[in-house]
Every structure is written in structure tokens, then in C-alpha cells.
């Protein structure tokens, strides 16, 4: 079967586990185990090819845009790791099915565990850098979920979060590093990257690439100073700790060191960075482990220390160092996996993990104790066990290093020191837990665990012994293919357990002896450690940094955003000024475009001054006298209308004028409702700031307008002038543009009106305000809301005004006028009725709902547009013809007129609807409601 199944099968298992969870207690465990075992079988079926030195590959293109292929490879290195992941996975599944409480949701647990397994297999088999990254981050995510498996525990939540953030940060650095690496190599295929070692090491980007990738490695493999997430992650259920946080996931980092060894290793930077960090971690972890009272805490720091050791071995950059590193990865996975499982059993049986309370368990569980003691001895590096062999290789490697020159003796010394502490903490694990008197205050009486729970431990411990005694026959071939997968051609190495009485052996003996000594003086050491060393922890530092980030973010946001609209507007104007001024200043804008202007006459000058004065007065009055401000804005509007007339634009003038009237009346109605509360004075500096900004914006706009108008240009509007009559059927070009050439814009704008009406209705419906009793200056409102004289005058005006509006509507196509203006005129007439006679009076006489008016208007306008479709013309295509009517004579009938009628109806309906809703705000009486959308029965 294809090697793709090695990854797919666990994934299928992950999907199946929760599905079958309900059947029997162990169903999901069985599903998980079956998937893992099958995947293992598939992997083993490829063993002959791999042992023959082949690389089994699989390649499907996926997203070529980012260089991501579905590319897998099974070479020697990947094969060793696949076996490790699957075999230990199988044992962990067996162990976990007994470890987890019966009432736990096992489906979820095994799904996540297998998802992790999939991701881990993906990392080791990926043949594409991005593929590798995808799986890399997936392990971080599944680890997060598994650590937080029981979110009711605070430690679990905290541990999960910290682990996610630290490994996630490393993942981002790794992403950057891999992208750069792919960029330098020119390919994201691992095979290409591995072949491009010289190119990469000689490239300018080598150091950034290395540092970024190492950040990923160090965070994942819990290297100092990123180590602190690992002890926190021990809040996970013990099977997870055994699997992810000692045997496999934390090895992903060092796996990368192995994988990229041919590409990145062998430089001085590599040696100092990788070796230095590894050595520091090795010593720091070994030292700290001794002082942990928590069983899993000790194992966590011991794991950190061993990961440091492995990192250091890879850091040497030598082929033999890399082989030793690989060997220790295997050994550590075996003994540490079994130790975690043993710790889990002890936790399970005693109810605590505090080594100050669990003592003398030998009496209660001798069998487990024996297993744990063998595994712990392997951890300490006792001869005849697997840990001894790789540790000897490590000691040996520290001896012949010439990079350090005169201080070369430091390395073996440090190695021996680390070995000493390893012996001491292993001894503590054995002696404290199984001997050292009687247990203190345990929640329950411990006894041996169920048979099946011990089996995984037995298998692993047996492996410790087997590898330790017969290395060449057991692990030898695997190490051989692993090394050749890693390095291309493996160096010759010797796995014999007896190399004669040499320096490494002496170092081992010293470490053993000194370790016993250290352990025996532990009480004094603990006291000194507590007294002298400050209580610092990476976890606390992390929390401090996270809190600082939160604090800084709060400060920044509070500083930027004070929730004041004025502030927002200032930013907007400022950005406009800077952005428009910058290119003009840099490239120089000649203000005068050369076109001669018209001579300035007295009337225009007065009008211009009036506009300027009114604009300034609006601003001055706006704060205290809103009514005055409103009058001032209407002066501006009026002068603008006059300007339009002056420049022969009657349509614009009419529109502007009618809009002015309607908006002013509506604004007056709103002003009536606005509270008259005290307005806080504006500080002087803000007044100045606003003055400067407003002046700059105003003058800038004026300058641009001047520059624009003094230049000639060739617009498309000649087309409109030319064809308005022959093809649009109207002599009023402005109107033909509005209803025909650009009728689509008008269609959109009347839709805006309709939406505005809907929005206002939705907003104000049901809202009731108290009618103010006093107006500006505290004067009471007149009791006579609807003066009789006004009513009497306005009523006869209505038919006249409506007639005028119809006239304006009908003539629009050929003379100044049109639907929009006509609608506003009619609207004004109706507003007058309402003001004069009151809402109820008008409402009773307006049979048509305003929404009907608007809807029909929109439908008519659209309908004329759709009619064109019947004649196989596009939407809104117009047509016109001439009819001969008796008496009247030849009359033009244009579809655009129907469109204009739609515009008329929408405008009238909208104006009236706004008015009605504003009027209803303060009236206590229920009104005849207009036909409206959104009404619930």
C-alpha cells in the first residue's frame, strides 16, 4: 500500500474513534489501536525497500502558487521515526484505555491523540517544506487541546495556553525560516533543499534562515530559555505526557536538526547556537530536575535536559555527533516513555505525585517498582541499559573537539556534571518513591495496577535492556538506515558495550559516584537551593510579558481611540490634507492653468462674500444658536442656487432651491426635538486646531477647484449635447442625462431615497419623545400649533402647487424641470398642509400609504427599464415616439417620462414619510399608520 496510508489511517482512526465511542467502553481505544497497528503494518511493508537504501516517495501537486505539494518521503530517517511514533503510539493507546476514568469522553481523547499522531507522522515524512510546517503547527494545536483535556483544572488551561503560544511563536519563526530557505534554494522540495547545502551555507541569508528555523526547533524541543512550557504541559493526562511531551512531539524539534543536518549544519554559527543552547539546556534541566518534588515535574526537567543533550550532539555538526543524537532520541523515547507510564501508575494508585509524600512503595507494588527502577537506571546511564550507550557516545564526542581551543576541557567537565545530576535525580526518583520510609498521608492505599496497564511499561523496559545488552543486533540496523537517511552516507560507528577502559567510561564512573554523593547530601542542597536561588520561573516571566502586552495594548488603544467623533473627524481631515498635499508639493502644481476667467462683477463678488460670511457664521452660531446656524446654511444654499442661475443652469438652480426648502423644514422639525442642554465650552487649543484644519481644507479645495477650472479639457459630454435630441428624444440635455444617458445613476439614487425612508421608518417607529414645552431662550411654544389663517391660506394653495408640479414633471424632458424637482415641489406643498393643519388632518386625507407611493415609484421606474428587455434591448433602454392627439396636436411620448414619473413618486413618498415619522415622534395619539414593511402581526 502507498505510504500515504501511513498518514491517512491514523486520520481515519481519529474520525472513527468518536463515532464508535458510544458502543462499548473500549470501542474508541480499539478503533485507535486498529488504525495505528494497520499504519504500522503499512510502514513495515516498506521496510525492505528502505533497508535497501531506497527513498519511497509520493507526490501530488496541491497549491503550486505557494509551492505546497502533497509530498511524502519514507527514507531511513523518516522510517525510524515512523516506527517510533507508531509503536509507542500503540503502547500509549493501550495504556490510556486503562488510565482514563471510565466516565471520560474517550472518543474525543483518542480522536485528538490520533490527530496528533497523524500530524507527527506528517512532520517526519513530509517531503515539502510547507507540508512540514502544516503538520508542525498541527502538533502544536493538538498538543494544546490534549493538555487542556480537562479544562476545569486551572493548571491545564494555563499549561495548554502557554504551550500553544510558545510553540506557535516558534512555528511562525519556522514558517519565515522555511520560506526563506525555499526562496534561497528555489524549491520547496525537501530533496532539493537537502542537496543544496553548500548554496545555503554560503548565502547571505544563511544566518537569518538558521536563526528562524532554530527558533522553531528550540521552542518545540523545549530548549532554554523556551523550556518552561513543557513542565506546564504536564497538566495533561499522563498518557499524553508520555507520548507527546517526552517520546515524540518534543522530538520534532531535534528531528528538524537531523533532517536539515546536510543543509544547515557544520558552520561555526551552527555549532555555537545549537551546541551552546543544547549544553545550557542540558545542564539547566539536569540541575533543576533534582529539585522538583512533583514526580512529573522531575521527569519533565529530565526530558528538557535530555533534549538539551540531543541538541548539543547535533550542534557538534559532525556525522558521529548526529548519529549519537539519533541514537539518544530512540533511547530516550523508550526509557522516558516507560517512566512516564510508571509515574502515571503511581499517580493513579496513590492519588498524588508529590515525592515528599509517596515513599516506600516497594512494599505495595514491587513489580511496578522494579520496572520503574530499570527505566530510571537507563535514564541515569547505568551500564547494560540503553541510556548508557548513547551517553558514552556523548561523552566521547565532547572529548575531541578542537573548536574551543584552550578551554576544551570545559566540555567534558560540563558533560560529567550533567551526568552527575542525571544520576542524582534518577536516584531520587528511585529512592524517594520506592524506599525512604513510609508513605505520608496518601488518599488511598496503593496496590499493583491492572495487568494490561503494565504491559506497555514491560515492553519498553524490556527494550531498554535488549538495546543495552545487544545494541548491534537490535538497534544497529535502524541506526544505520536512520543515519544514512539523515546524512546520505553514514559514518562507521561501533555499538559495542565495552570499548575498553577509556575516558568516557571514567567520566561515567565519576558521574555515577558524584551523583550518589549529590543525592546523599540532598537535604543540605535543597535548603541551599531554596535559600540562595531567586524564585524565578519562565512561566511567571511569560505571564508578565503577556500581561505587559495586554497593558500596552490597552494604553495604545485608549490613546488612539477616545470615542469622540470630533477626534475621528480630525484624523480624517488630517489624512486628506497630508495625502492630497504630498504629491502636489512634491511634483508642483501650477495653480493657474492658463484659461482666462470671466471678469468679476459686483454682484458675483457680493454673492461670494455672502457665502463665505454665512459659512463662518454657521460655525460660530452652531454651538449656541442652532436656529441661526440653520438660517445661515440656507443662505449658503440660496446663493449657490443664484450662482447656478447666473451661469445658466436652471435645472440645477431649481433642484437646489427645492432641496433647500425641504431640508430646511425637516431640519427645523428635528431642531425642535433636540435637547437644549448646556454645551461644554471647547478649550482654546481645540478651537485653534479646528480653525487651522478647516481653513487648510477649505483653502486647499478652493485651490484645487481654481486649478481645475483654469484648465481646458475634452470631456465626453459633447456626445450628450449631440445626441440628446436625436437619440434621447429630449431637448433638455440635463434631464436626458438624468433619465436616459445616466438613468442608471438616477435609478440608484431613488433607491437610496427608498432605503432612507425604510431606514427612518424602522428607526423611528415605536420611538416616542416628550414634546419640549419651551424653545430657544426658554420661551414657551405657542399653544396654537396650527394657526387658522395659515391653514386657510394653504389649503387652496395645494391644488395650484400640485398643478405646478405636474407641469414641471411633464415639461422636464424638453425644458427645465423633471421628476425630481416636481416631486420636491409637490412634497413642499404637502408639507405645508401638514404644518398648517396638523398631522392627523393630513393623515386622514392621504389615502395612499407613503410606502406604496415609494414602492410604486420604484416599480414604475424599474418597469420602464425592464420593458426594454422585451424588445431585446438592455435594461433601461429608452424609446420615444410622437402621437397626434386631437386638440393638443403632436405630443412626444417617451419611456423616459414614465421613468421620471417613478422618480416623482419616490421623492414625494420619501419626503412625506420622513415628515410623518418626525411628526409622530412627539404625538401621543395613535395615527393611521402608513402601509409599511416589517410590521408584525
Amino acid at each position, binding site marked *: 500500500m502507498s505510504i500515504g496510508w501511513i498518514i491517512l489511517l491514523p486520520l481515519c482512526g481519529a474520525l472513527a474513534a468518536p463515532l464508535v465511542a458510544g458502543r462499548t467502553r473500549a470501542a474508541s481505544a480499539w478503533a485507535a489501536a486498529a488504525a495505528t497497528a494497520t499504519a504500522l503494518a503499512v510502514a513495515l511493508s516498506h521496510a525492505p525497500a528502505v533497508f535497501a537504501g531506497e527513498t519511497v516517495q509520493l507526490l501530488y501537486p496541491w497549491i503550486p*502558487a*505557494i509551492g505546497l505539494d502533497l509530498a511524502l518521503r519514507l527514507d531511513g530517517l523518516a522510517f525510524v521515526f515512523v516506527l517510533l511514533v507508531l509503536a509507542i503510539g500503540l503502547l500509549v493507546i493501550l495504556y490510556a484505555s486503562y488510565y482514563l476514568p471510565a466516565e471520560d469522553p474517550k472518543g*474525543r481523547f483518542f480522536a485528538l491523540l490520533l490527530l496528533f499522531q497523524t500530524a507527527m507522522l506528517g512532520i517526519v515524512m513530509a517531503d515539502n517544506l510547507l507540508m512540514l*510546517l*502544516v*503538520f508542525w503547527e*498541527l502538533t*502544536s494545536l493538538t498538543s494544546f487541546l490534549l493538555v*487542556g483535556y480537562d*479544562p476545569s483544572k486551572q493548571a491545564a*488551561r494555563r499549561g495548554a*495556553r502557554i504551550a*500553544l*503560544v510558545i510553540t*506557535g511563536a516558534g512555528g*511562525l519563526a519556522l514558517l*519565515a525560516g522555511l*520560506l526563506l530557505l525555499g526562496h534561497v534554494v528555489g524549491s520547496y522540495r525537501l530533496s532539493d533543499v537537502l542537496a543544496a547545502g553548500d548554496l545555503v551555507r554560503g548565502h547571505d541569508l544563511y544566518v537569518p534562515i538558521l536563526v528562524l528555523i532554530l527558533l522553531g526547533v528550540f521552542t518545540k524541543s523545549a530548549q532554554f530559555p523556551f523550556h518552561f512550557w513543557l513542565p506546564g504541559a504536564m497538566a495533561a493526562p499522563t498518557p499524553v505526557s508520555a507520548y507527546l511531551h517526552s517520546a515524540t512531539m518534543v522530538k520534532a524539534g531535534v528531528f528538524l536538526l537531523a533532517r536539515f543536518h546536510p543543509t544547515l549544519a557544520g558552520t561555526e554559527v551552527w555549532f555555537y547556537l545549537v551546541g551552546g543552547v543544547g549544553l545550557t539546556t542540558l545542564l539547566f534541566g539536569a540541575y533543576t530536575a533534582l529539585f522538583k518534588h512533583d514526580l512529573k515535574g522531575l521527569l519533565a526537567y529530565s526530558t528538557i535536559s535530555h533534549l538539551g543533550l540531543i541538541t548539543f550532539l547535533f550542534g557538534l555538526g559532525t556525522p558521529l555527533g548526529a548519529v549519537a543524537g539519533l541514537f539518544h532520541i530512540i533511547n530516550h523515547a523508550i526509557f522516558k516513555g516507560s517512566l512516564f507510564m510508571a509515574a502515571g501508575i503511581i499517580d493513579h494508585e496513590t492519588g498524588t505525585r508529590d515525592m515528599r509524600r509517596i515513599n516506600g512503595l516497594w512494599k505495595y507494588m514491587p513489580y511496578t517498582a522494579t520496572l520503574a527502577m530499570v527505566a530510571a537506571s537507563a535514564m541515569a546511564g547505568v551500564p547494560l541499559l540503553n541510556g548508557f550507550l548513547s551517553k558514552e557516545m556523548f561523552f566521547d564526542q565532547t572529548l575531541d573537539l578542537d573548536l574551543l581551543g584552550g578551554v576544551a576541557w570545559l566540555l567534558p567537565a560540563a558533560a560529567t556534571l550533567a551526568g552527575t545530576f542525571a544520576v542524582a535525580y534518577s536516584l531520587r526518583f528511585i529512592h524517594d518513591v520506592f524506599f525512604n520510609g513510609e508513605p505520608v498521608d496518601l488518599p488511598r492505599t496503593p496496590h499493583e495496577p491492572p495487568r494490561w496497564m503494565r504491559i506497555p511499561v514491560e515492553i519498553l523496559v524490556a527494550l531498554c535492556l535488549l538495546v543495552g545488552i545487544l545494541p548491534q543486533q537490535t538497534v544497529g540496523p535502524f541506526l544505520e538506515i536512520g543515519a544514512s537517511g539523515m546524512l546520505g552516507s553514514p559514518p562507521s560507528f561501533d555499538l559495542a558495550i565495552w570499548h575498553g577502559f577509556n575516558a568516557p567510561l571514567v567520566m561515567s564512573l565519576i558521574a555515577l559516584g558524584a551523583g550518589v554523593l549529590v543525592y546523599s547530601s540532598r537535604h543540605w542542597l535543597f535548603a541551599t537551593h531554596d535559600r540562595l536561588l531567586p524564585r524565578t520561573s519562565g512561566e511567571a516571566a511569560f505571564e508578565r510579558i*503577556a500581561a505587559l*502586552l495586554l497593558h*500596552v*495594548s*490597552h494604553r495604545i488603544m485608549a490613546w488612539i481611540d477616545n470615542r469622540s467623533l470630533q*477626534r475621528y*473627524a480630525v484624523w*480624517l481631515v488630517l489624512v486628506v490634507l497630508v*495625502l*492630497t498635499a*504630498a*504629491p*502636489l508639493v*512634491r511634483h508642483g502644481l501650477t495653480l493657474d492653468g492658463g484659461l482666462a476667467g470671466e471678469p468679476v462683477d459686483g454682484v458675483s463678488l457680493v454673492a461670494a462674500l455672502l457665502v463665505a460670511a454665512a459659512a463662518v457664521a454657521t460655525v460660530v452660531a452652531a454651538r449656541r444658536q442652532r436656529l441661526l446656524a440653520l438660517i445661515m446654511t440656507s443662505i449658503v444654499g440660496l446663493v449657490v442656487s443664484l450662482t447656478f442661475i447666473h451661469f445658466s443652469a436652471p435645472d440645477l438652480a431649481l433642484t437646489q432651491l427645492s432641496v433647500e426648502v425641504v431640508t430646511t423644514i425637516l431640519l427645523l422639525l428635528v431642531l425642535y426635538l433636540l435637547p437644549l442642554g448646556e454645551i461644554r465650552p471647547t478649550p482654546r487649543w481645540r478651537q485653534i486646531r479646528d480653525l487651522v484644519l478647516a481653513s487648510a481644507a477649505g483653502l486647499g479645495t478652493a485651490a*484645487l477647484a481654481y*486649478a*481645475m477650472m483654469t*484648465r481646458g*479639457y475634452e470631456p*465626453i459630454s459633447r456626445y450628450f449635447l*449631440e*445626441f440628446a435630441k436625436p437619440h434621447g428624444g429630449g431637448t433638455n440635455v440635463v434631464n436626458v442625462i438624468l433619465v436616459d*444617458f*445616466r438613468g*442608471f*445613476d438616477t435609478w*440608484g439614487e431613488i433607491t437610496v431615497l427608498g*432605503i*432612507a425612508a425604510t*431606514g427612518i421608518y*424602522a428607526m423611528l417607529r415605536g420611538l416616542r419623545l416628550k414634546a419640549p414645552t419651551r424653545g430657544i431662550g426658554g420661551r414657551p411654544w405657542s399653544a396654537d400649533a396650527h394657526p387658522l389663517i395659515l391653514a386657510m391660506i394653504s389649503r387652496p394653495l395645494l391644488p395650484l402647487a400640485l398643478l405646478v408640479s405636474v407641469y414641471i414633471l411633464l415639461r422636464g424632458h424638453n425644458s427645465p424641470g423633471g421628476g425630481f424637482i416636481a416631486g420636491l415641489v409637490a412634497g413642499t406643498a404637502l408639507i405645508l398642509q401638514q404644518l398648517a393643519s396638523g398631522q392627523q388632518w393630513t393623515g386622514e386625507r392621504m389615502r395612499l*400609504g407613503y410606502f406604496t407611493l*415609494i414602492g410604486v415609484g420604484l416599480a414604475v421606474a424599474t418597469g420602464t427599464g425592464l420593458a426594454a428587455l422585451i424588445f*431585446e434591448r*438592455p*435594461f*433601461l433602454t*429608452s424609446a420615444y415616439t410622437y402621437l397626434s392627439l386631437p386638440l393638443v396636436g403632436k405630443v412626444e411620448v417617451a419611456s423616459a417620462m414614465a421613468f421620471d414619473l417613478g422618480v416623482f413618486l419616490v421623492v414625494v413618498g420619501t419626503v412625506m414619510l420622513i415628515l410623518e415619522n418626525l411628526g409622530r415622534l412627539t404625538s401621543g395619539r395613535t395615527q393611521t399608520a402608513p402601509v409599511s*414593511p*416589517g*410590521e*408584525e402581526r
Partner: protein
Amino acid sequence: MSHWLVLPLLIPFAAGVGLLLAGRMPLAGQRWVGTIATAASLLVAIRLFGLAAEGQIGVYLIGDWPAPFGIVLVLDRLAALMLLTTALLAAGALAYAVSGTDRAGRAFHALFQFQLLGLNGAFLTGDLFNLFVFFEILLIASYSLLLHGGGPARTRSALHYVVLNLVGSSLFLIGVGLIYSATGTLNIADLAQALAGLDPEAQPIAAAGGMLLVVVFGLKAAVLPLHFWLPHAYSSATAPVAALFAIMTKVGIYAMVRVFGLMFGHGEGMLAELFAPWLLGAAILTLAGGTFGAVASSDLREMVAYLVIVSVGTLLAGLALGTTEALSGTLYYLVHSTLVGGAMFLVADLIGRGRSQGPAIVVGGRPPGAGLLAVLFLIGGVAAVGMPPLSGLVGKVMILLAAQGSEWVAWIWAAILISSLFLLIGLSRAGVTLLWCGDVNPGDAPATAALIAPAALLLAMSPLMVAFGGWLTAYTEATAAQITDGRGYVEAVLGQPPASPLRPTSVP
């Protein structure tokens, strides 16, 4: 050209006007109308996407007036992609709304359809002034939708929204006026030609007009420091409205692509490199501001709103780089961030509903059904941060890769990656606090499937965008090529003959 192009406008328009006319139709009926119209829009969008994917550019002469004199609708790959994204998002938002939030105020369904009209129109129009008109439709409909449900918080933030955007509308008009005065035309294809060969003397005026458009589109897109309206407005809006608004900022980005990629993209002299440096600076500022905002948020909805801003920063970075690869990444990320952002608003609402503390990020009760919600939140969060294996990573990597040729590469990489890290910190804090802390109130019922399904379906788009990533990135690449080349667009628009042989196509 068939009339397919005008359907994305006519369907929501007809539904909206129908709902106005139908007056007192019961809510159930309104829901049917809205659902049918939205589903029809989705089908039409899929059909148009299929048409555009063939590489043809569809042009529809409204009123049968030839370009550049009349208004045209143009269906290129970009428009089709935007239409489809909008339709998908709208389907999700509406499906969520019909489960009850449409009850909170009046005329929801009519306004919702009008909002879709504005969006579709903005994406289809080939005319700069007509774009303004559709922006107005968008603005007025969105203002009303923001107010849906009422209350002081909504009223206040909606006021900020509408005032700033009205200022933006004025700026838009001034900008269009300046550009028209320099070129004498409003048709985008014609403008692309006119601007490319613009007399150096007139260039500064066109540049000033273009810069005003930068501000307007930046305001729509919530680019720092023009973003202020967004966080409060989105976090106080009802969930389906906020979800639909995930596309609103993208309208600004879309307009930038259209205007600066296509229209100004082929200019010489000062117009050529006018916008890129500003956009790059704004991109990094927006990324930073959005990230700090997200981290500092004390409310999940607000955090999601800031995530929208962060995505805008990322998109701007891609846009500013200007290469075809960068544009392709931008478009991919645009689709991703729209759908995921919309879904996250729904998820935030689902979480908030089940807690007595609402969506406030404080330790309190867990919402009922926390497990499922946690899965949704995790998927959305992973996608938003840009972690594997979801679409955020693909989009981000596309933009990171495209940045490699730029002299700003270090800035862009650092901004995007550090922002991702901070978002990871912020989102994990929020998720852990909201979904892992505290106990479920035993009396509460978990959210119904009808509420969860829309969020889940929108989120499902993210893995789908990865699974079919090869196909989708090929589409966005072709889209980017179509934009940066521009010739196809210009030729299609200006070469489209009117249906009537009598229509004059040029001035004598």
C-alpha cells in the same frame, strides 16, 4: 450580452421593493422572500462565476448607450469573485438572521436585500460615478441595518459611522470631479486609457483626485487612522448584520484594486508610483493597530471587529506590493477573511448568548454546548491567525512570498508574523476564558442547530479553500493577471457594440 449581468441587481432590488409594497406581510412571509432572493442571488453568482472563469469579460451597456458615454456593468474575474463571496456570506448571515435576530427591529429583510443591491452594484459597475451611487446605497442601507434592534450603543456608533462616511461621500465627489476635470470621462476603462496617456500638466490634479479616493476607500476599508467607526459599530450591531459587514471593508479594498490596480495602474510619470508607499505605510499601521486592538479587546465581538481590521492591513500590504503574485494573494486572502470574519461574528454571538456575562472576555459561566462552540471558535481562530491547516495560512504565505522581491520585505514579514503571534495570544486568552473557564448553567439549552449551521457552513469554507487551493489560487492568479494587464478589460468595455445598430458610438 445576455441579461445575466443585471440579475445580481434586479433580484435584490425586486425583493426589497416587493417587501416595501407588501406592507404588512407577516415575518414568516418576509423571511421566505428574503431567503428565496438570497438563494437566487447565490445561484446567479455561481453562474456568473462560471462565465468569468472562462476568461471572457462580460459587458452590459445599460440603456444601450455605448461606453464611455453610458454606464456599463462589467463582469470580469474580479467582479465575479466578489459577487460569489458576497452571496455566500449573505446566505450565511441570512440563515442566521431568520432564526430570530430579524425580529429585533423592523424592515430587516428589505434593508438586507438593499444592502446586497449596493454590494453587487459596487462590484459590477464599470463607471466611477456609478460606483459612488452604489456606495450611497451601501451606506444608507448599512446605516439602517446597523441600527437594527436599536439601543443607545448602536445609535451612538451608527452615528459615528454615518457622519464619517458622509464626509467620505463628499470627498468621493470632489475626487471624482478632479479626475473628470483632468480626463473628461467617468468610465473606468476609458479612465485607464486616459490616465495612462495623461498630459503631465494635468497629472497633479488627477493625482490629487486619486489621493482623495485613497482616503475614501481607506475609510470604507477601515485603514488606520480612519478605522474608528468600525470596532464600535460592528461590535454593537446584531450578529448577522456584523457578519454581512465583513464584506463591507472589502468593498474598500475591492475599489482600491479596481481604481489603483486597473485605473491608475498603467499611468506614467507621477501617477505610476503614487499610491504604493502610502498604502504600505498604512498597511503596517493598520496591522499594528488592529492587532493591539484585538489583544486589548474586553469583548469577543470587539475582538472579531479588530480581526477584520487586521485582515484589512494584510490585504493592504498585498495590494501595495502591486505585483501579480501579491494581488493574487490579496484576493485569496480577501475571500478567506470575509467568510471567516463573518463566521466569527456569528460564533461570538453564539458564545455570548449562552453566558450571563455575554461576550465579555471575563471569567464567568461557560455557554451551554461549549464543546461544539469551542470547535467552531478554534477553527475560526486558527483560520484568522493564519495557522495551518486552514486558508489563513495559504493567503498569508502568498502575500509573504510576494513580498520577497520588495525592499519592504522585512517590514511586511515582521508586521504580519508578529501580528499573527499577538493574535494567537489574544485569541487563545479569549477562547480559554470564554469556553474553558467556569461551569455551564444547568438550566440553559444549547444553541439550536439552525443557529449553529450557518456559522459552521461559513467556517467550512476555510478548509475547502485549502482543499481546492490549487484551483482557487489559479483563479486568483488569472484574476490578478487580468487586472494588472488591463488591456482585456479596456478592450472589452470600449469595444462592446450597442444592441441597436442605430446608436452612435462616437462623437462626430
